[in-house]
């Protein structure tokens, strides 16, 4: 299925969860947050949250800034 991750069209397995996406995209960060269609997905819900075609996701990690 196709979803949008951080603004880019991305192809994922049909049974993909938020946890699968984070594992693939977290870039070594453990402090990661995920927004799905404009709402926060709490960390504890990542494994049970199945994605659907057309979902828009933001996968975020810390950066320096005042």
């Amino acid at each position: 299925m196709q979803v949008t991750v951080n603004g880019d069209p991305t192809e994922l397995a049909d049974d993909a969860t938020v946890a699968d996406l984070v594992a693939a995209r977290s870039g070594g960060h453990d402090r990661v947050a995920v927004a799905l269609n404009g709402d926060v997905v709490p960390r504890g819900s990542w494994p049970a949250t199945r994605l659907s075609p057309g979902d828009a996701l933001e996968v975020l990690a810390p950066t320096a800034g005042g």
Partner: protein
Amino acid sequence: MPSLETLEAAVRASGTQLVTVALRRVEASSSASMLEVLDRCGVRLLPNTAGCRTAREAVLTARLAREAFGTDWVKLEVIGDEHTLLPDAVELLDAAEQLVAEGFTVLPYTTDDPVLGRRLADAGCAAVMPLGSPIGSGLGIRNPHSIALLRDAVAVPVVLDAGIGTASDAALAMELGCDAVLLASAVTRARDPEAMALAMRQAVEGGRLARRAGRIPRRWHAEASTPFQGLPEL
């Protein structure tokens, strides 16, 4: 910062207890080792909502930061103008009220308007953080009178946030009654960040001491410190 080594040296020299961090798309984020450095320094992380332009964006960013960092403290920043990066007062107060209601400890970056500062404190913000001048400008505290009025207008801590260019700006903030300063560019863009971080620490300590010691009133004319009594006729 030029390097992680410089970052660590500056954080340690400054004596700071709180370091702000932001959330960005993972491809554009800092390396995970930056967080390791900050963890090693023993500082508390304060997530910000930098780049947000509406209350809706800022509230969502704060919720995401709470997930990522496991803290309900947030530096609330809602920008209303891309050139000056000045806060949008209307969106800021709206976001502050929502986040306080959700249990966040809200530290808002605000203008130096004492009335807005009081409204933010009344809304339940844990502190107010007025700018001295625009973010990254290094112009110091352009309106010390407003900062002093704001200090008197609220009972919560006042943190001078933005505009500090050098150590004397930090000292002035503390002399005006601020409880702390928040700064980044003045250290990260200094020729020697570690030395400037130490200068900031000493300036904050000096300014705080001077505030507590009580400055003398200003006078128009001179007042001799050597007595005239007993002056010989020569």
